[in-house]
């Protein structure tokens, strides 16, 4: 018996979940996949007075749908293994598909959810990086109504989001990638599935003449929130992809656009080194993907 006592609510509908959040506010915590919350409760780092188990909303909130224009809408309670194996994700969001095997281990992916990972806002998690890289839009609901928030406004700090105490994430949507786009994702973890020391996601789009028309680089676990390397990406735009170009971009990302700290796993200097190497690899992957 590890977690501290709590009142356990298992609402059957989203309406009932939102009512429970209104009633209990800061006292309440939503239980989705539980793969971060329950360890925190086992350690008693988290002691919610009321646990609102939302797993009975699977019928309502676990879905992956393609939109008319080729984007995707994913329900917040979609589990990682469902995203990992989804043909729609493979077709419409290669970056998301590339990231899924890096999320912990198979048993964790059988439980963990998309909305839970985003709302937890762990700087070492992959899905916040995806949401920022793909400029996703989150749908957030409460009894007060529904609102939409850009991923760039959602993550406000270390394990902190724009969510109010009575709100929950219900859906995440992304627009289609432009034609001639490619994506790459690489991370470095001491063992596969462990929290990554650092990682980089890249999305590139080629113009008809073979030059880079657009680029986006987002770095994982080298700041309180996913770090967008705008100047590094701008270095690549307008140019033909070459190893020298990637090295120049990676240098800017590693020196100027991240904010790593020393911790027990790695020094800040080593994390900068990783971002320099991983940025180049992510760009190579992304440009290769355009060709294929």
């Amino acid at each position, binding site marked *: 018996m*590890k977690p501290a006592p709590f009142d*356990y609510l298992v609402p059957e509908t989203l309406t009932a979940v939102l009512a429970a959040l209104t009633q209990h506010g800061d006292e309440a915590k939503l239980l989705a996949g539980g793969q971060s919350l329950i360890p925190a409760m086992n350690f008693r780092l988290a002691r919610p007075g009321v646990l609102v188990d939302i797993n009975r909303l699977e019928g309502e909130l676990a879905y992956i749908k393609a939109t008319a224009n080729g984007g995707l809408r994913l329900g917040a309670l979609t589990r990682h293994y469902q995203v990992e194996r989804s043909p729609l994700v493979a077709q419409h969001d290669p970056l998301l598909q590339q990231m899924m095997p890096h999320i912990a281990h*198979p048993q964790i992916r059988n439980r963990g959810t998309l909305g839970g990972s985003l709302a937890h806002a762990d700087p070492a998690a992959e899905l916040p990086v995806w949401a920022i890289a793909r400029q996703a839009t989150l749908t957030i609901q409460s009894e007060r109504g529904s609102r939409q928030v850009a991923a760039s406004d959602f993550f406000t700090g270390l394990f902190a989001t724009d969510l109010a105490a009575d709100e929950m994430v219900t859906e995440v949507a992304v627009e289609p990638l432009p034609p001639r786009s490619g994506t790459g994702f690489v991370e470095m973890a001491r063992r596969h599935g462990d929290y990554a020391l650092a990682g980089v996601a890249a999305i590139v789009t080629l113009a008809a003449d073979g030059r880079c028309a657009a680029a986006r680089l987002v770095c994982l676990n080298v700041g309180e929130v996913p770090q967008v390397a705008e100047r590094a990406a701008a270095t690549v735009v307008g140019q033909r992809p070459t190893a020298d170009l990637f090295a120049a971009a990676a240098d800017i990302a590693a020196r100027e656009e991240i904010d790593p700290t020393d911790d027990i796993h790695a020094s800040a200097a080593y994390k900068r080194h990783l971002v320099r190497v991983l940025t180049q690899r992510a760009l190579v992957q992304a440009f290769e993907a355009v060709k294929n």
Partner: protein
Amino acid sequence: MNTFPLTVTINGSEIVRDVEPRLLLSDFLRHELGLTGTHVGCEHGVCGACTVLVNGRSIRSCLMLAAQTHGQTVQTVESLGTPDNLHPLQQAFWESHGLQCGFCTPGFLMTLIPFLEETPSPTEAEIREAISGNLCRCTGYQHIVEAVQRAASRD
């Protein structure tokens, strides 16, 4: 003490109990039902020793509340073979020396049962990915991988 009226099917038997909501599935299996084949190592989702199946999917029983299994189906290592009649995967572990102290073995077995159903002819890389969430401090994994290959070759 508030309790939750739980009805769950475990290894084919319907179990009806009032449980404290904070009771973890791992502790429910071991302490309340005496199913001590499910081992508890780290109790925060890192070691994989407590892996069981819920509705056929492998999960960490230390990261799920017993109350969350209401209306669902749970399988533990006790649902596999008996000492006199080992499950083919257990037999393969035995023959390949895929265990030494055996503490991690139930978690490996319950991870691998659904994996081999979905991936009957796995590559070594697929096997290693499948067991990436299970720690073994004795074997160095090589004999475990061989055991899985041996089991797969017989299917």
